[in-house]
């Protein structure tokens, strides 16, 4: 008989606060009059901030709860901060945008908080059942959020498409979990790894199970060939949601992949490396090459997001190599952080130019931005350079860290593919810069306080932190995965 231990709650305290706050906010929202839903946003942001404060305050603590089903370690703290930060930025972007687009509804913010909770839980999950629970908790609200632009058809389409493919992906994960359970008789990562060591050579059942889990999360992080939904969903969803999804869902997907594979399946390294290698290479190639053909900025950034999933997957190749995997995980986390800051900035700029009815989203609409809004264009230039990996931006530092881990793991050819595809990416990122500065036009832009704050702070951080990355490196390398 399982006993309830109040200490268990302590291990997920920030999460409890977040979920409780979201539930209460759903009720409170009923009493906030229509047209003043900004208050819901502010309250939601408070909830996220408190949860973030709790997470940071407990940063050094390590422990587990619910009989080892959830853990708290450096890894989960790092990702929780990153995810809560994305939630906050998501709200900052949505604040005026949703009203301007005529989609302002109070329930948006609690739903977003539920999704954030799922992502935070994913970072802490140490049991496949919890992984599944977290996956559903983060995904279902995201389906709703993607369709929040209803009755605009492309948003409805995005929601439906994301739902169908997401459900499909979840199916893969569940099937994988059952096979792993069948092979090892366990769902806890600790017990799975013990069982695989006892097994010696991994059984085909276990391999297939692990591969199915990888496929499922491949959908979530938008790795090729499981990326088909990404451009349509990213394009159709309200841009603030897209920004949140691009960072949050990716962070949660990689959280699950890293924790499950590094902790539970190190023995499958030899069998899975070629698969991950091919996934990473394909993702980088396809993402970057197809991005060239895009004329819509949201689609272009969607393909760019696919490509960046490929870069992070490169670090993942070394998941079973105990000599380098700590560094590989740290570099993946650091890259996620860099991508989060940069991509939120870029999406904020997209929102500043977006008009009702989906106008203002073509790259040609950016013509003349350099003259009309010098600061906004400069910020966008910084983001494009950072995504390319040019100095003086964090993007370059992220690539430094990532490629060192890849070379250290002995995957030189993968690193070569990585740098060559980033050369390809320079072409389409530069095209945005070319359009902004070297073509004439009269772009219409919006000035909104939270939006302006987001892109200006993101640009500042992207440049300034690139000169002072030591603290971030230390933080990422301290984000160690622990097995309890």
């Amino acid at each position, binding site marked *: 008989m399982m006993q309830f231990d109040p200490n268990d709650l302590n291990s997920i305290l920030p999460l409890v606060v977040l979920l409780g706050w979201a539930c209460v906010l759903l009720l409170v929202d009923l009493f906030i009059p229509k047209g003043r839903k900004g208050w819901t946003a502010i309250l939601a942001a408070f909830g996220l901030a408190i949860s973030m404060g709790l997470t940071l305050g407990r940063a050094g603590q390590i422990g587990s709860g619910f009989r080892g089903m959830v853990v708290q370690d450096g890894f989960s703290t790092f990702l929780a901060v990153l995810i809560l930060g994305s939630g906050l930025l998501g709200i900052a972007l949505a604040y005026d945008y949703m009203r301007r687009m005529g989609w302002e509804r109070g329930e948006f913010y609690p739903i977003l908080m539920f999704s954030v909770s799922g992502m935070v839980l994913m970072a802490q999950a140490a049991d496949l059942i919890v992984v599944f629970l977290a996956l559903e908790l983060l995904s279902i609200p995201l389906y709703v959020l993607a369709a929040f632009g209803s009755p605009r058809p492309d948003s409805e389409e995005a929601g439906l498409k994301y739902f169908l493919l997401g459900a499909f992906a979840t199916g893969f994960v569940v099937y994988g979990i059952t096979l792993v359970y069948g092979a090892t008789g366990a769902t806890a990562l600790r017990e799975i790894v013990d069982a695989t060591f006892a097994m010696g050579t991994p059984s085909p059942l276990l391999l297939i199970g692990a591969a199915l889990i990888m496929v499922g999360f491949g959908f979530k992080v938008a790795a090729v060939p499981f990326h088909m939904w990404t451009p349509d969903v990213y394009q159709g969803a309200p841009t603030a949601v897209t920004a949140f999804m691009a960072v949050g869902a990716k962070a949660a997907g990689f959280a699950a992949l890293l924790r499950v594979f590094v902790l539970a399946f190190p023995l499958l390294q030899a069998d899975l490396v070629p698969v991950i290698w091919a996934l990473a290479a394909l993702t980088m190639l396809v993402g970057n090459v197809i991005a060239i053909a895009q004329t819509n900025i949201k689609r272009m950034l969607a393909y760019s997001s696919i490509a960046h999933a490929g870069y992070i997957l490169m670090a993942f190749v070394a998941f079973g190599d105990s000599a380098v995997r700590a560094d590989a995980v740290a570099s993946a986390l650091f890259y996620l952080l860099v991508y989060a800051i940069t991509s939120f900035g870029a999406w904020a700029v997209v929102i500043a130019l977006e008009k009702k009815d989906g106008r203002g989203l073509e790259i040609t609409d950016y013509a003349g931005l350099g003259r009309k809004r010098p600061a906004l264009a400069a910020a966008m230039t910084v983001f494009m350079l950072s995504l390319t990996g040019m100095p003086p931006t964090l993007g370059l530092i992220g690539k430094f860290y990532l490629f060192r881990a890849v070379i250290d793991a002995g995957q030189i050819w993968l690193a070569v593919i990585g*740098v060559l595809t980033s050369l390809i990416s*320079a072409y389409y990122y530069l095209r945005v810069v070319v359009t902004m*500065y070297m073509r004439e036009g009269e772009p219409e832009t919006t000035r909104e306080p939270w939006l302006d704050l987001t892109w200006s702070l993101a640009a500042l951080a992207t440049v300034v932190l690139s000169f002072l990355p030591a603290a971030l490196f230390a933080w990422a390398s301290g984000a160690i995965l622990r097995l309890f």
Partner: protein
Amino acid sequence: MDFLTNPLNLVTFSPLVGVLLLLVLPSGRKNLLRWTALLVSLLTFGLSIWMLTQFQAAEAVAPGELHLGLSLPWIQVAGWNITYAMGVDGLSILLVLLTTFLTPLSILSTWTAVEERVKDFMLFFLLLEVGMLGVFLAQDLFLFYIFWEFTLVPMYFLIGIWGGPRRIYAAIKFFLYTMAGSILMLLAILYIGIQAGTFSVPELITALPGLYASGVIALGAQMLLFLAFTAAFAIKVPMWPLHSWLPDAHVEAPTAGSVILAGVLLKMGTYGFIRFNIPMFPDAAVKAAPWIALLAVIGIIYGAWVCYAQKDVKKLVAYSSVSHLGFVMLGLFALNAQGMEGAILQMINHGLSTGALFLLVGMIYEQTHTREIAVYGGLWKITPIFGSIMLVVSLSSMGLPGLNGFVGEFTILLGAFGSQAIGSPWFAGVAAAGVIMAAIYILYMFQKMFLGPEGSIVEEIKKHGHALRDLNWREIVIMVPLLVFIFWIGLYPKPFFDLMAPAVEKLVEALPQIVH
């Protein structure tokens, strides 16, 4: 405090003062913006002269070493060992001075040429100067790479916004081409960092021979590392057959951009060879020397050959760079003191002469808006000062004795002729033909444009109610300092050789014995 008072940092980052000032100045006050940029770049030049005096004092005590350096821990976590390391020695001091010298002259040349978005232009120009100085002074591979890649960004804007009709194409081509080389270098840098546990260049030069000897980095790996660095630098130089970005970038860039591109940015490539490739991968450098010499000689002849076919005078000057930089590469990979000293001097010479040629071409283009050689003729009679200066600069570019180009090319050829590493005097022999070819295409250009009957452009200009004017005071002020150095190096190059000789000798001594 070390960071802020270090002379090298002061020189490198002083243009940022201008950047900050420009940011707060109103964009409508064009002359104010120009003067601000000019004065700040002159300040940087002044600081670099002060740095030179300090350098000479330090060099008297410890010749051939890195001086005025500082090395601060920068990123020392998570297995990284990155330092903020700067330093200057005989290999880089002249290039630093060339950069700080050409920048104010280039800014002065934009006085009437750049009327659009003056503020942004000056911003990018000063940022570019920071990047270039950083490249020449950085002594840590990580820091170097950041400066190296950073120079791409302002140059890309300078070409892309203020360039000619095909500017966007040229800017993107420039960016992608250069980036293609440097990303391979990035992987090589990371590999070295992992193997040696440091990114500091002086430490690596001490540590790497041990790693080679113990087999941690095998000869094959050393060759690959050498090739990866070569990819970055050879594109920048540019060496034949990787030169095709250069004519586009040069022709489309605004005059000041071309001056800096030819004068300084190309030297970043040759400097990379002498600072990194040769001392860090000595065995590979010795092995590769004949091949690089071969490419260099092909570049010399090909560049000169293509010059004949040019109808556009700016393109002619651009292709002449391919030829001249071939000489520099030949001298470097002679791997003896003579060849290298000649090469370093020739880097400076090319910066001065080709920079001056681009400036002169820009000055006439501002009046006529055409660069087609065929429409010119008899200019010397109409614009005597312009013609005379053009003659001196052209002669310097083709290597007439008594002017700077001769000293550099002659020393290079002597070095290459007796080079053990290249192994055959034929390379120098064929390269010497390049000198003659240079004389032909330069004189052909000069004859077509400045001698003979008046060209059709003179009539054309008259039709519009203008007349071709000679150089004005501002333009003469730009050219005089360049002419001073053209004569100075041509007549008395000893002070310049003295600056670099100890460092070059130290570098050559460290190379492995060459056995054929």
